[in-house]
């Protein structure tokens, strides 16, 4: 390359030189070229001649071309079979070259992807991708975790709300502040010979509570209903009983929600409610119902002293 550059420079210097006096150049040229009178005549016209000095090289290419074509034609003429064979080989080689060139270009332009990558490059790319995948997986895990927390928070709020509502309903039913319905019994105390004492009714209530009653109300003969809650008391009053301050007269009907079989069994045990009421001169009828309704509610009591702990 350096040699060629020097050659280039040398050749360029010659045409660039004409700025100087033509005579000196012609003088200098004369010995080197060792060409005859033609050069001398050309030396007369200086700028024109500056170019013609170059034609010496121009002559050269024309000469090689002539030479080459001549030699080619000559060789082809000289020994045709051998040359055609090699020519065919050359043609085949060049055709293969063009073919592969195009194929390679197509392959490369088709996908500038992994197909042409080397093994170590592929390994590196693969490990890069693995690391990236690992990072992304961690990110996914973190996001999933936060999403789970958020949704569980929302769900938890929802669940807590529903739980609280359900619990409030349960407590309301247990405390007697909400009406309730469900399977249960209708227990009717009918006085026959003498009024039913409040103690018997209280016994029945306690027995029913012990048998799993969840909501109760007691209805007097006049249809007045009193919700039986924890603070309900039973007193004998004249001709009837006072339940929670409300005076009821017989017959009394206890509407109780709970497991009917268990409560019925509890009432009917020997020496139990039914037996003692019958012994006291009353009559007890027990009806199982799939649905009974406890509609009476106990009056709300505002707590005056007790406060929730938490």
């Amino acid at each position: 390359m350096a040699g060629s550059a020097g050659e280039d420079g040398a050749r360029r210097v010659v045409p660039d030189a004409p700025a100087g006096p033509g005579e000196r150049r012609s003088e200098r040229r004369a010995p080197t070229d060792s060409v005859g009178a033609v050069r001398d005549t050309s030396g007369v016209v200086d700028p024109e001649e500056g170019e013609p000095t170059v034609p010496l090289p121009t002559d050269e290419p024309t000469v090689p071309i002539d030479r080459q074509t001549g030699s080619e034609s000559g060789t082809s003429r000289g020994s045709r079979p051998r040359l055609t064979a090699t020519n065919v080989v050359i043609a085949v080689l060049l055709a293969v070259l063009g073919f592969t060139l195009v194929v390679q270009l197509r392959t490369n332009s088709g996908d500038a992807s992994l197909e042409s990558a080397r093994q170590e490059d592929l390994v590196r790319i693969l490990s890069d991708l693995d690391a990236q995948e690992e990072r992304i997986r961690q990110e996914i895990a973190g996001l999933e975790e936060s999403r789970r927390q958020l949704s569980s928070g929302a769900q938890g709020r929802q669940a807590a709300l529903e739980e609280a509502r359900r619990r409030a309903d349960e407590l309301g039913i247990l405390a007697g502040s909400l009406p309730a319905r469900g399977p249960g019994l209708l227990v009717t105390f009918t006085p026959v010979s003498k009024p039913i004492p409040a103690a018997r009714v209280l016994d029945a209530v306690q027995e029913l509570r012990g048998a799993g009653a969840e909501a109760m109300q007691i209805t007097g003969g006049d249809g007045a209903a009193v919700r039986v809650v924890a603070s309900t008391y039973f007193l004998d009053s004249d001709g009837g009983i006072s339940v929670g301050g409300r005076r009821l007269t017989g017959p009394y009907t206890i509407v109780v929600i709970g497991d009917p079989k268990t409560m019925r069994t509890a009432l009917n045990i020997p020496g139990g409610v039914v037996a003692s009421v019958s012994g006291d001169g009353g009559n007890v009828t027990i009806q199982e119902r799939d649905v009974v309704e406890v509609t009476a509610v106990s009056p709300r009591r505002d707590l005056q002293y007790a406060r929730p702990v938490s």
Partner: protein
Amino acid sequence: MIAVLALFAGVLLGVWLDPTVPSALQPYLPIAVVAALDAVFGGVRAKLDGIFDDKQFVVSFISNVLVAGIIVYLGDQLGVGGQLSTGVVVVLGVRIFGNVAAIRRRLFRA
């Protein structure tokens, strides 16, 4: 002339057939193409210089391709395939540039 026609025929054939390179050849094909290009440019230069020899061209073409492929294969076996193919491409590129420079000088005298 035949060579140029053959080259075009090969190009057209490649465009027309549009084959896929088998994966076993994929590392070697580009190097082989570059080596063949080097041989072709050397042949053109020799032609312009008037010293073109058919046999020499064929032998140099084939040996260029084979040696380039073998070098890349060796590099792959040694674990330096990428670097070695780069080196081969650089060397062949330098040669191609030299040949093209000679051709250019021969054709354009510049």
